[in-house]
């Protein structure tokens, strides 16, 4: 690889049900905050990569065309990535590739969604599902995980409580429930059996942005960089007999490739914390197993033991995760952005003390798209 990539600027908007701002305003706010963090301006940026979920969510085709003025992209390269729910992760990885190629010195990447401008449930199926939504696809797989692993019902509730309490520490989070209890989750309405209302991600507006640069740029950055140590993406066919959607091969191969590139041999011990794409509570134990962080059948035990809480030995979704904010296109980017926050020491009240190496993961489609990266406070972390 020609150059190393470092995240030197991070910017987010508040996530909310309906932000009273245009899409232009939304992406610009996140971009300006990331630039300010990096002590740069739009004029310093060589190229821009944007990402969002389907155009049909807001009814804007190829939004890079109308957003280019708000992002001061005129006269520059700007391109748009779309890989379903994993798109924010894929977008960040695409942007880091621009730096790693040696072709660009400073890249701005922005991902967003303005769910209040459309109707995701409608867009997902062209209005024909009668509201089955994403949860309708995933609930049977969660049931399957519970059956195979023998996980008790309360595991999902426990993840929801942890994430919502973590979200209360994140000033940008859409949903913040510091006082939520297991009982409240259990008693909340059943949406898609076994998923209760309080185990479901919200519909959010919001944008996230990062400024990336090379080693020379990182040296000049005013705040500590997060070094991109490795990234990986894998896709498998969405539907076919013989595929295991509970533990997709693409998810395992993506993790294997990622860990190998980073030099990680014992992920649970060598990674300090992780942000995983968990739109429904049960996906936390499913991804802990599905990404080889623990043995099969052990994921729910990690949750049960408190290992994934801040202060546990493998904290997950310190920011509150997708369960607290789901600006779809940006959700995947947030999963990669928050680990950068952790290793830069800028995660505020949800900071994991001494976080040195962090994992970010996003998935999409019917659990068939995966995008991951490892970031570190050190450019060349060693593992023992």
């Amino acid at each position, binding site marked *: 690889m020609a150059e190393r990539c470092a995240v030197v600027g991070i910017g987010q908007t508040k996530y909310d049900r309906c932000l009273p701002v245009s899409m232009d305003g939304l992406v610009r706010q996140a971009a300006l905050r990331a630039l300010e963090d990096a002590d740069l301006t739009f004029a310093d940026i060589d190229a821009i990569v944007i990402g969002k979920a389907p155009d049909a969510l807001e009814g804007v085709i190829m939004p890079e065309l109308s957003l280019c003025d708000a992002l001061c992209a005129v006269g520059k390269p700007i391109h748009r990535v779309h890989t379903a729910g994993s798109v924010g992760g894929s977008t960040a990885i695409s942007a880091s590739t*621009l730096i790693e190629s040696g072709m660009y010195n400073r890249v701005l990447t922005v991902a967003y969604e303005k769910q209040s401008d459309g109707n995701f449930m409608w867009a997902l199926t062209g209005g024909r599902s009668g509201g089955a939504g994403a949860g309708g696809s995933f609930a049977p797989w969660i049931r399957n995980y519970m059956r195979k692993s023998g996980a008790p019902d309360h595991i999902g509730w426990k993840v929801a409580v942890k994430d919502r309490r973590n979200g209360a520490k994140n000033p940008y989070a859409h949903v913040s429930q510091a006082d939520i209890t297991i009982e409240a989750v259990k008693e909340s309405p059943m949406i898609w059996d076994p998923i209760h209302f309080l185990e479901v991600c919200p519909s959010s507006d919001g944008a996230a942005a990062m400024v990336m640069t090379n080693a020379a740029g990182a040296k000049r950055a005013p705040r500590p960089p997060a070094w991109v140590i490795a990234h990986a*993406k*894998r896709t498998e066919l969405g539907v076919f007999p013989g595929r295991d959607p509970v533990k997709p091969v693409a998810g395992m191969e993506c993790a294997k490739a990622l860990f190998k590139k980073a030099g990680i041999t014992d992920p649970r011990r060598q990674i300090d914390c992780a942000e995983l794409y968990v739109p429904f509570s049960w996906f936390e134990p499913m991804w802990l197993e599905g990404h080889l962080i623990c043995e099969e059948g052990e994921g729910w035990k990690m949750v049960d033991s408190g290992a994934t809480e801040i202060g546990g030995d493998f904290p997950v979704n310190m920011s509150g995760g997708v369960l607290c904010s789901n600006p779809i296109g940006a959700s995947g980017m947030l999963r990669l952005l928050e680990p950068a926050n952790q290793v830069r020491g800028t995660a505020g009240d949800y900071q994991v003390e001494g976080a040195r190496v962090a994992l970010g993961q996003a998935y999409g489609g019917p659990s068939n798209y995966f995008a991951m990266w490892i970031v570190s406070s050190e450019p060349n972390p060693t593992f023992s």
Partner: protein
Amino acid sequence: MEDIAIVAFAQTPCYRKYDDSEPSMIMGLVNQIVEEVEIDRHQIDFTIAGSCDYLTGRAFAFIANVDGYGAWPPVYESHVEMDGAWALFEAFVRLQMGDIGSALIVSSGKSSPGTPREIFPLQTDPYLGAPLGLDPVSAAGLQARALLDSGKATERDFAEVVSRSRRDGLSNPNAQVGKDVPVEDLLKEPYYASPLRKHDLPPISDGASAVLIARGQRARELCEKPVWIRGIDHRIESHHLGLRDLTDSPSSRIAARSLGLDAGSLDVAELCARYSPEEIVLRQALELGDGTRINPSGGPLCGHPVMASGLTRVVEVARRIRGGEAGRGLGHATSGPALQQNLLCILEGDA
């Protein structure tokens, strides 16, 4: 910069209506490419696609296209919601990193299920533009009018572009339209979106194209005549038509300058000129002279599979270089109303 070459390419014919699915178009092309270079599909290190959900009329439509290039066992893959030429850009950037050797780029689009003039106003600014319903044809009409008013072109110039392109389409087996019509006859046709006549517009097409690229040594292993990519750059202009000089293409010029493009060295240029006046704007902005053959395939005026049309321009240039008709050429792709965004790709054969 790493030496990266196109080692194989394929395209479907441009169809007015392709009755089978988009993945089936892609699958045919991928099979054709892997057979030609005699490798297993899983020896391709990276795959990236370009397509548009809106053409299919279904959010997440691109997920089905994965079936077309095969993803079992899982593949390292990505997708841009842009013309496949931008997928080529991202693949080219990715190969610069040096850790992988080859990448497959596929692009596809089926315009036949919808009505492009009704769909594409949604490409404009959603608050002030889209409600007005300004569609690509009307934007092209404004651009044509600006050209006439500026004195940079005449209606006869438009007709000459059409006459030449449609004649060239006759010898392109993948073209949807081909016809030998003299300029005088074209000028007698009625206006459609004044000052554009129907023949100044591209046909509505379904189609796909694909390209396999590889780094230096790997490229030579995979084929006898690699077509080297000497550079790719793309730039955008303001979305607001009122802020632009529609008679010029500054974004193309910036891209050309950053690539160090010497227009005089180009034997061939395939321009993604969707409307005849666009060719004139591009020719002038890029300073293409008489020594450069423009759109020998007939260009988008003879077949315009949206999302694949730009990558197809690159394919057409590669074809001519490989065939020995040209030594050096330019592939161009565009996106947005009135040439808002432009991509240039310089290709060259072995000396």
